[in-house]
């Protein structure tokens, strides 16, 4: 092949790759632009600070839903992250064959289960015995959705830690459990945090599993054993209502949701890029 032909192919292939990249980013930009266009007019201070107004009155906001989503996500993280991270550590480190294989299989199946089924599960094991919808039930449902993502990414990231790190630590006379917690886990930290962010972003927007667990609420948070508002629920309720003002607020809610996820992801990036990081 002549150099000229090689250069020609190089230019064409670079163009194709750039086009593909643009096509991947395009839907995201379109969605974001559309949300801005539709929702920006309803985004104001009231929207972030006030409760919804009764039907028919204009104005009001979704402050309760924003707080509710934050509470639900924190609950889900508190339940799902320790379990998921330590579960992933176990899967990566265990020398046993059968139990990890089974756990991995279950995690993968769970990852594919439609979220509404997980909602029904949470409804059966928490809402029915407690005899009411609650923040707890919603947090639990979201935690179950997070779990397989966190378990599997944690496992992969812990596996990426070179065995030379483990051996170096063991050879210093450090007990194995300390090696895992103080050397292996910190080395995998950056990657695990990325996985955690993906999981949080995923559950923050879940609607279906909250329908019959968290249920929604038009007032402020009233305790973890009470129904609680959530942004996706509120967006859903407002979007199908016949009022223009509510439609605008639904768009604004969607915009807020994306903003929240964006801020959380960004914060995680900043936090993890600070100190020396290990595997990414």
């Amino acid at each position, binding site marked *: 092949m002549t150099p000229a032909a090689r250069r020609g192919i190089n230019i064409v292939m670079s163009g194709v790759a750039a086009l593909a990249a643009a096509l991947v980013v395009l839907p995201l930009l379109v969605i974001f632009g559309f949300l801005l266009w539709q929702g920006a007019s309803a985004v104001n201070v009231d929207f972030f600070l006030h409760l919804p107004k009764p039907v028919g009155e204009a104005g009001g906001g979704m402050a309760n839903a924003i707080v509710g989503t934050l509470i639900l996500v924190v609950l889900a993280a508190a339940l799902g992250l320790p379990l998921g991270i330590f579960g992933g550590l176990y899967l990566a480190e265990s*020398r046993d064959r059968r139990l990890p294989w089974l756990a991995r299989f279950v995690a993968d199946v769970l990852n594919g289960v439609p979220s509404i089924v997980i909602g029904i599960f949470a409804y059966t094991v928490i809402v029915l015995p407690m005899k009411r919808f609650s923040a707890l039930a919603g947090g639990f449902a979201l935690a179950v959705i997070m779990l397989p993502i966190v378990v599997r990414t944690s496992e992969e990231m812990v596996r990426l830690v*070179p065995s*030379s*790190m*483990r*051996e*170096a*630590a*063991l*050879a*210093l*006379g*450090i*007990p*194995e459990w*300390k090696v895992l917690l*103080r*050397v292996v886990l*910190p*080395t995998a*930290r950056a990657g695990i945090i990325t996985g955690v962010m993906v999981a949080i972003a995923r559950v923050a927007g879940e609607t279906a599993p909250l329908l019959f667990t968290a249920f929604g609420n038009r007032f402020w948070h009233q305790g973890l054993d009470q129904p609680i508002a959530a942004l996706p629920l509120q967006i859903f309720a407002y979007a199908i209502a016949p009022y223009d003002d509510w439609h605008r607020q639904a768009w604004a809610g969607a915009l807020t949701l994306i903003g929240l996820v964006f801020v959380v992801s960004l914060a995680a990036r900043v936090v993890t890029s600070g*100190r*020396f*990081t*290990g595997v990414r």
Partner: protein
Amino acid sequence: MADGILVKDLNAWFGDHHVLHDIGIAMAPKAVTALIGPSGCGKSTFIRCLNRMHEVVPGARVTGGVRVEGQDVYAPGVDPVQIRRKIGMVFQKPNPFPTMSVFDNVVVGLRLGGMRERAVLHEAAERALRQAALWDEVKDALGKSGVSLSGGQQQRLCIARALAVEPEVLLMDEPCSALDPIATAKIEELILELRSTLTIVIVTHNMQQAARVSEATGFFLLGELVEFGVTRQLFTNPRDKRTEDYITGRFG
């Protein structure tokens, strides 16, 4: 004599692969013993048996007896963690912990062993870094990442890390194989300095190095200890034909 390293009838396996055959050796205390031999003959496996690192590999197995400085390493009930504290190890590839600073790398053994006092940690870090001939180069950069150092500095950092817990024995598995001649010379100097306080075993492919730093040398071949004796004698007047072939480079 109870001191030094005494190995009897040592056999080691990786799964079904029998890598070490009936090794017996008596290494003197506070001296440097070099181990040489072609690649794959089991030198690394052998020294990993001395501090119970062999069993860390899934499926690996050991039989036979090892006594290090008077202690039976494989006696039932002996905690491998305690053995490894006593017997430091430096690996072929520098392996500082990437999430830790230079300082944290050096004191990690002490810190995770329960030592909290900053003054003690600082003192130990400075002593170990001086011993490893690294102090002058890093004393103003103790907070920098351990992996930001050069390869040779990283290896000396790993030596300092091993020395900080004050082991009685230091096992070095080809510590200079990734280093330039200057860094290698530094580490050899260090070995000569340390031998007054430590029992040292060094695996090396560099026969000049073995000749320079060690009192005794063992030659491994295909999982057997072919010859073991005073370094000068082994290199100038080997008893075994196979040793002679190897050190004269006539080996296939």
